């Protein structure tokens, strides 16, 4: 077991030669649950500021891939590096460093129900980056205003609608100032009339240059905001390209079938 202080230096030694390297680099990623292989060798590179949508049937491995990127799921084979630092599962300190850079938003919001909205947003910065309470509070107020919920600072999460809760979750993730935001079907648990307000916030982030990797079923949205769309099928990246090409001129029968079923 290496000590915590050894992490930055070892990370520096694995950084590739100066130049542009992808923010997220995935090579030959394989992941099994017992005998069931859900990722069968995934390759993907994400550049800084890119907006990537991952689409595909349920069970195609898209959520698992997303959860591998911030270490919520361990993988068995392959390489995954964020910011040039290879992800090592089992090294708690390295994982923590990685997660400071990679925020995540969940389908079920996962707000902390025992804390007010404001405290939800403030908690991680005060604990993890030792931000002074006052600074964290101002940041939280600013971020809540940004997602249109400035007046809900002292509300409890269960007093909010689903759409409002998801927007708080976005503010909470942003409070850590991540470079990458992972969005795991962030509108799937919402009533249809609440989807728009959340997508609007996500689109705002995309416009401001945030690197976004999102698993989504909202094809219209994926087409509108993505720089690239990834179609996953049976644990592999089956087709990938700019939205116009992928949606307008799908190359594989699987993608044609997938898109055909939606209409």
């Amino acid at each position, binding site marked *: 077991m290496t000590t915590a202080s050894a992490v930055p230096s070892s990370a520096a030694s694995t950084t590739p030669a100066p130049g542009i390297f992808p923010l997220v680099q995935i090579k030959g990623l394989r992941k099994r649950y017992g005998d069931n292989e859900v990722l069968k060798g995934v390759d993907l590179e994400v550049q800084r500021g890119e907006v990537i949508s991952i689409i595909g049937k349920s069970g195609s491995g898209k959520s698992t891939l997303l959860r591998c990127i911030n270490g919520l799921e361990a993988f068995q084979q392959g390489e995954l590096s964020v910011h040039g630092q290879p992800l090592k599962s089992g090294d708690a300190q390295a994982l923590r460093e990685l997660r400071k850079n990679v925020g995540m938003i969940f389908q079920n919001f*996962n707000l902390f129900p025992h804390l007010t909205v404001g405290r939800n947003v403030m908690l991680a910065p005060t604990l993890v980056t030792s931000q002074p309470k006052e600074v964290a509070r101002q940041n939280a107020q600013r971020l809540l205003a940004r997602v249109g919920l400035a007046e809900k600072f002292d509300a409890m999460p*269960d007093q909010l609608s689903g759409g409002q809760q998801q927007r708080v979750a976005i503010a909470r993730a942003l409070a850590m100032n991540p470079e990458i935001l992972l969005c795991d079907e962030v509108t799937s648990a919402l009533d249809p009339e609440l989807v728009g307000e959340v997508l609007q916030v996500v689109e705002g982030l995309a416009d401001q240059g945030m690197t976004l990797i999102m698993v989504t079923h909202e094809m219209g949205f994926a087409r509108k905001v993505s720089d690239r769309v990834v179609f996953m099928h049976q644990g592999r990246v089956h087709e990938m390209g700019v939205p116009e090409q992928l949606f307008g001129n799908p190359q594989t029968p699987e993608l044609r079938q997938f898109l055909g079923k939606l209409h």
Partner: protein
Amino acid sequence: MVDFTFWDIAKQLLLALRWTVGLSLIAFVCGSVLGMALLVLRLAKLPGAQRFVAAYVQVFQGTPLLMQLFLTYFGMAMVGIDTSPLLAACVCLTLYSSAYLCEIWRGCVEAVPKGQWEASASLAMGFTEQLRHVILPQALRMGIAPTAGFSVQIVKGTALTSVIGFIEITKAGQLIANATFEPFMIYGCVAALYFALCFPLSLWSQRLERRLRPRR
């Protein structure tokens, strides 16, 4: 032969009641601390710890408290600890309640949705931060009512320490009954005193249960 007035008897029983209350408090407080430590050990996923804690809990849940008392009392003497009934009773009841409390609270921790672990982990919180600020506040809220309920078990459990010669209220009742030849009246009083301790605890536990019912 000496005659005992009812007042004499009541006075003796009330004096002994202090030991029942005291022993219950010690067992509950020390048991809580130890139980929490065991719970953290189990949740921390240290190699072997999970199995050790599970076995510990099983041993205490799977044997009668009476045997645990005998084994503690004679076992401590065997390994050379200069033991007294009070010490043995405290140690044994602490171990006993720690096992049960650990298991009660573990159930509560497991009832906290997995998403809470994932969300806090994604915010780069470490294990102790997750536990301290996210998981335990929610779990313990669920745990308050069953914990208060278990405290009733501890109070009643102290009665068994009479067999290793600890003079709490059951033992005092026994001694007085032997002297007065009025066992039914004496044990009736003893039972009434237990009830006076336990009933408010039960009521309180039920009230907490209603008030703290999870809102989700």
